């Protein structure tokens, strides 16, 4: 009879666990759902996170996140043609972010800002605060990339668990984005591996990124970023592309270019239609 009691108690525990959203979401793997801010850039964090960010360890991590350091690392790994391309780039006209195009996965997410980590049964999603510059990343929990990937700004990411570390493999990039702010180029051969794990009792996500590109880099390089979990709500920060022209000169250039191309396409489409009618 005692075994019956124990069984009933155990059943109660199991049922409680099954009905608890947090436990159900975990499904045997770490659940990192939430809002995070990059350590060292806590402009939008709550007071508690700001206070914690002042502690010596987090300050040390923030220093490791220095943008200039990463920029120099990338420069040191460029092949000669890539260095020449970087030196020839126009800091305004060739800066995709300045003309309201995407910046890709490399510049904004390595320098500042927050992210929202989401999960579904089949994938992880990372939404960045400056969404129109980066977009929403999707990490598919599978072991193979699809064949014949079309090159895109964000590439195609797959992930698997190595213990409590999520290993993310991304390929399928186009060659339109820059690796860092000095406009270091990459090719479609770009291959990125990220090892993501929770540290500091789960309050910080550590992301170790390794970047390889046999056509643009002399050898792979790595860097680490830390993101602190915050209680604050996710803020979809509007960049100049949403809120209005921050730099009138760049804005005018972008607008004129866009409308010119649009008109050209319309004229071309109209011509094709007229030709078809004939």
């Amino acid at each position: 009879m005692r075994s019956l009691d124990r069984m009933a108690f155990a059943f109660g525990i199991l049922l409680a666990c099954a009905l608890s959203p947090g436990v159900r979401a975990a499904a045997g793997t770490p659940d990192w759902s939430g809002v995070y801010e990059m350590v060292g850039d806590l402009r939008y964090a709550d007071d508690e996170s700001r206070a914690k960010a002042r502690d010596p360890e987090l300050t040390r991590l923030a220093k490791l996140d220095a943008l200039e350091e990463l920029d120099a690392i990338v420069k040191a790994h460029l092949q000669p043609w890539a260095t020449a391309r970087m030196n020839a780039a126009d800091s305004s006209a060739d800066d995709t972010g300045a003309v309201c195009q995407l910046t890709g996965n490399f510049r904004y997410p390595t320098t500042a800002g927050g992210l929202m980590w989401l999960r579904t049964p089949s994938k992880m999603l990372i939404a960045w605060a400056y969404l129109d510059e980066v977009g929403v990343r999707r990490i598919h929990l599978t072991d193979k990339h699809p064949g014949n990937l079309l090159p895109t700004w964000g590439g195609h990411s797959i992930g698997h668990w190595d213990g409590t570390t999520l290993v993310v493999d991304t390929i399928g990039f186009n060659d339109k984005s820059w690796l860092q702010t000095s406009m270091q180029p990459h090719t479609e051969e770009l291959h990125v591996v990220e090892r993501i794990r929770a540290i500091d009792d789960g309050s910080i996500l550590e992301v170790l990124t390794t970047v390889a590109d046999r056509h643009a880099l002399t050898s792979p390089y790595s860097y680490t970023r830390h993101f602190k979990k915050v209680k604050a709500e996710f803020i979809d920060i509007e960049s100049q592309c949403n809120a209005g022209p921050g730099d009138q000169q760049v804005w005018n250039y972008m607008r004129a270019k866009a409308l010119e191309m649009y008109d050209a396409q319309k004229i071309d489409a109209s011509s094709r239609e007229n030709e078809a009618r004939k």
Partner: protein
Amino acid sequence: MKHLNMRSVAALLTMLLLSRAAFAQGVSTSPSEHDLTGVYRSVSSERVRPPVSRLPKAKAEEQEEDAWKLCQAVGPFRMMGMSGLKIELVPMEGALVMLFEDISHGNLRVAHLNRPHRKGVPPSAQGDSVAHWEGDVLVIDTTQLGDRSWLDDQGSRHSDSLHLVERIRPLTGGNTLEYSMRAEDPKSLAEPYTYTRYFERVDSEIQQDVCEIESHWDCGDVCLK
């Protein structure tokens, strides 16, 4: 037997208390009771939504440049009215996140559950969305929208008084969503604007929403209805 009953009752009480507490957490902080997780596409047979009936003054404020063509956010009213709309709903603790394909330029929507609208924040393209469940219907209320976005692709401007109320009801076991929109803006709309459309669950992914200037012109004016 008496001994058994006391122990069994205690065990069962423990079971019920624990499971009830756990279930209450789900009701109060997450949409798990009505799990809308999934990718949905608007049904192909839907009727085109009615034209916006604007106030004369609002009509006169038309602007020439379409935010969508310039890779800017178009706002939730226009996003939700897109023909052939494909969305992904992802619940998280205290919120429902909506992801879009081809229309958002990377912008997503976050509807915060069971909290009032924020105060003292400036208007934005996406506004402030809060949500709650009314039975099996998720009601999303959006305010604090800026006045730079359009109500359609014809340049109909709205004001910063635009107020959206959306109602999402799962049907057919969650494989269909009934979606209704009610928009009020006494400064630009002649009357409240309402429509209902339906979405069906699809076994596919949302594609990366890339706003490249070159890529927009292929579909031109027919992309948005």
